[in-house]
Structure formats: C-alpha cells, structure tokens
C-alpha cells in the first residue's frame, strides 16, 4: 500500500471535521487541545495514511498539505 502523511496547520483548522469524514482510512481525529482561535483542531493519529488527498479536497480552510511516498523508479 502506498504510504502518505499529511500536515495540518492547526492554527487555521476550525475543527469542522469534514476531513475526518472524508478520510477512507479513518486516520484522523479531533484533538482534545484547542488552537489559538479556540477551535479543537484535527490531527493525524494513524499510520495508515495513503496520501489520497480526500481530506485536503474537502478542507474549507486549506489547512492540509498532503505528501505521498515516491514511486520506486523503474530500472532503465
């Protein structure tokens, strides 16, 4: 399985949870902490992220950056 990870800008996350719902892997959850604006923000908790970008696609605050494992280069 392809590996990925995401970075969530916790200071702009408003904790709307739409990414949690959109994540097919169930990798995200709402933090118990609050950010500088008073929102509970989302965090990546599982190691099973595939970098599918679904969370970033539905994020209304452009808070998510997605990284995906490079495909191994085929031998020439």
């Amino acid at each position, binding site marked *: 399985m392809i590996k990925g990870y995401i970075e969530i800008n916790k200071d702009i996350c408003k904790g709307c949870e739409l990414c949690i719902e959109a994540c097919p892997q169930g990798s995200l959850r709402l933090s118990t902490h609050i950010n500088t604006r008073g929102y509970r923000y989302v965090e990546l908790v599982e190691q099973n992220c595939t970098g599918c970008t679904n969370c970033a*696609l539905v994020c209304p605050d452009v808070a998510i950056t*997605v990284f995906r494992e490079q495909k191994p280069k085929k031998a020439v």
Partner: protein
Amino acid sequence: MSTDVLTQELQQGFDCVYEKPDTLTDTRFHYCPGCGHGVAHRILMETIQELGIAEQTVGVAPVGCSVFAYHYMNIDMQEAAHGRACAVATGVKRVLPDRYVFTYQGDGDLAAIGTAETIHAVNRGENILIVFINNAIYGMTGGQMAPTTLAKMVTSTTPYGRETDWIGFPLKMTDLVAHLPGAYYVTRQAVHTPNAVRKAKKAIRNAFEYQKLNKGTCFVEIVSNCPSGWKMNPSDSNKWLEENMLPFYPLGDLKVPEKA
C-alpha cells in the same frame, strides 16, 4: 514550507501532492467552520494557478459572505455593490478583453438583487466566468430567506418554512441562464464530497479554457452548505444538502459547447 531538519527528514522519499496554491494569500478565511465557500475559493484559485493565468485575471467579489474574497485571492480584484458584480465584470472585460474576468457571487447577490445584471450579462454573452454559490440562504445578514431557499425551508424570515403560495418559489437561476443564447457553458456542481470537489474544479477549469475562445458566458453554480444559517453541524449540513438541495438542484451540465 518548513525547512527544519526533522521535517526534511520526514519529507525524504515523499512528494508533496497537495498544498495551498500561491494564488491564495496567507489570510485565514473568516468563514464559519465547514462552509463551502473555502473549498470554492480554493478550487477557483488552484485552477488559476494551474493554468498560469494569475497575472491576467481580474476577479469581482460580491456583497454577501464572500464580500472579503479579495482578502484571500492573491490577484487584482474589485469589490462590487450588492448584485452588480456582473455589470462591474462587464466594465472590466470590455476595456480589458484579453484578461480573464470572473465574478464570485452568492444567491442573494446573483439571484435576487442582481437578477437583471446577471441575466443581461449572460444574454450579451459577456466573456466572463460567473461562479454562483447557492446555499439557499443569506449567510452574512444572519440566515434570511434567499431566492433559492427551498419550499418549506425554515430561515429567519420564513420561521414557519417557506410558504410558496404567498412568498414564491425557489428560483433556478442556472436553468434560467442556460436558455440564453449568450451562455456558452452552464453547469451545476457541488463541493461537499471529494469527488464533487474534483468535478467542480474541472468545471471551473473548463470555464477558464472556454473564456479564451471568446464564445460567451460560462456559468458555474456550486450548490453549497451554510452550517450556521441552516443551524446544523458541518457534517449534517452536507447530508442535508445531499438529501434536500440536490433533488431540487440536480448536479450536472445544463449547457455544454457543441463539439466542432
């Protein structure tokens, strides 16, 4: 992007596959949690970035929740009076015909007070993109009835539900403009699921590409939510959108260019 050592190490062997486009400023959106405006802003500005047209694009913001769109969109923009975005965009496009011009308008702005400006701009075939955010409510003023408010829907000015027998019916502006000869591409999209977002972004990309052809107006409706105005959490608002908005405002193309 951060350059600290740990991050660099973490990023090794990984590609960034999704990040905020440069065409969005670093200003935090003022929208309520879960509001579709943010997604619509993002896919619009991503498209402009991907097409490499940021330097040739002028946007027109409306009056409504997205009145501050120009705080977020890192391009030249004008703020129009309520409902007049299409007239303002006409003024811009007529004197700068080689620029990409778009309006970004909500339902109150576009389909109530700005109906005349919208219909006539489309009817003239102004070579602009009209992005129409339909969330069936006046968000900024606190959840009043919009022209697109569904029958029976409760708002702060239809506290017993929209009674169509005396207050009229929800207006399908997109269906209306699709009939006009000046319209070149008319589509209705949504941004409530990852797939819907992909499709909506493709529609916006089509619209900008068509604008190059000088063939008429492109009109992209985005059926969206209003968690605060609908008094629901974001997740429920998207479910409500799916169950109530989409049957009345079905997604899909209403007018596509004929193949040459």
